[in-house]
């Protein structure tokens, strides 16, 4: 029996092309959702789109340089503004909805959600 390496999560989702397809859909959902949109009111859209892209690449299991410390630093000011577990839940929900819209199978969406979930402690500065 031959052995083969199974494709990574990132490859299964579709790699960089999938990130490109997802980033606008995801960011639009975030900006349109009253539960979280106020955190994005005063951010520069260009910079934010670049961050969303880096975040999605990481959540899709792709190459990234994110560290827990980056996550803490990047969200510390939002924690001061009241960022909590409920908001993280919304983001993970919107991430799942984005992937569902792109017809990504549910088991892969669950894996993405798990990666996003793993950043919760750092994002909320716990």
């Amino acid at each position: 029996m031959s052995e083969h390496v199974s494709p990574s999560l990132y490859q299964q989702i579709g790699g960089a092309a999938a990130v490109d397809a997802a980033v606008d859909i995801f960011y639009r959902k975030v900006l349109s959702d009253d539960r979280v949109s106020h955190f994005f009111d005063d951010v520069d859209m260009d910079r934010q789109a670049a961050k969303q892209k880096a975040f999605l690449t990481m959540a899709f299991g792709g190459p990234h340089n994110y560290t827990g410390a980056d996550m803490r630093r990047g969200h510390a000011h939002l924690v001061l503004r009241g960022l909590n577990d409920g908001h993280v839940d919304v983001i993970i929900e919107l991430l799942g909805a984005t992937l569902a819209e792109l017809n990504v199978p549910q088991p892969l969406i669950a894996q993405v959600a798990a990666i996003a979930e793993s950043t919760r402690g750092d994002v909320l500065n716990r």
Partner: protein
Amino acid sequence: MPSITFEGQDREVLPGETVLDCLLRSGVAVPHSCKAGACQSCLMKAEANVGLESAQAGLKDTLRAQGYFLACSLRPSADVAVSLPGGEVRTAARITRLDSLNETVLRVRLRVEEPFPYYPGQFLSLVRSDGLARSYSLASLPHESDLELHVRRIPGGAMSEWLHSDSPEGETVWLQGPAGNCFYVPGSPEEPLLLVGTGTGLAPLYGIARDALAQGHTGPIWMFHGALTPAGLYLTRELQEMSARHANLHYVRAALRDGGVDGVEDGELDACIRARLPKLAGFKAYVCGDPALVNSLRKKLFLAGIASKAIYADAFLPSSSPSPLPQSAACT
């Protein structure tokens, strides 16, 4: 504390201070305007690379490679020797003609003797002989003999008052740039274009629209020009004639107050856009002018379905000095 060497003299940098603030504090007249890393008026050159990357956003690769940086964006952590850019990045220009486009907007025409390649819609820094600098967008096309800028009169605004009141026709000024990515890119002639601007945000859009038409753009070009009142609109006749000549150019004017007459729409620009263009997916958009409006509009256009990469925004940041009054003729 690190020190900055300028013209042979060392100046100590205070904690958190930028190169620009340090030099201004010690009496060096560095041209500057927005102090936000956008207008590029405070371009300087460092003798060594001391971690300049964070202060090089938006600069051309050729300038980056030579150690140019924006003095308002560099907080040095090591000693650095810096100099002001010389003739190698500046082009002399003569003010050839000034005419009023409405009560507050002046058309400034400039002639350069050397080639000054640019794309209509990009911006340049206009530097007066005493070093005063402001950024303005280019409304002209490269084949035209003169460069064209639109300058709004700002009470107490040093550059705009000079241009409006002192009639400096014939004077020589310096141009730095051009810069910015708000311009027409050929290759998709059928793509629908949305051009939205307030006040002198019309300048880059006027350049972009004429450039697109000159390059044979066949897709619809929607131009929305907004102002507080109808008196703030300008180039109306020219744009009406253009849209009469080009069936694909649609020109809409809107005023927040006193609209509803003479073909001027009454109300917010985004409502005017939505009323005419309910489906925006697939458009490429250019949004120029007042920063608050630019930022809110680009978000609305994105939510209305335009891809984030297809929105080019140019927020005209106010100049931070030397006038204490808010200014907005300077642009990013």
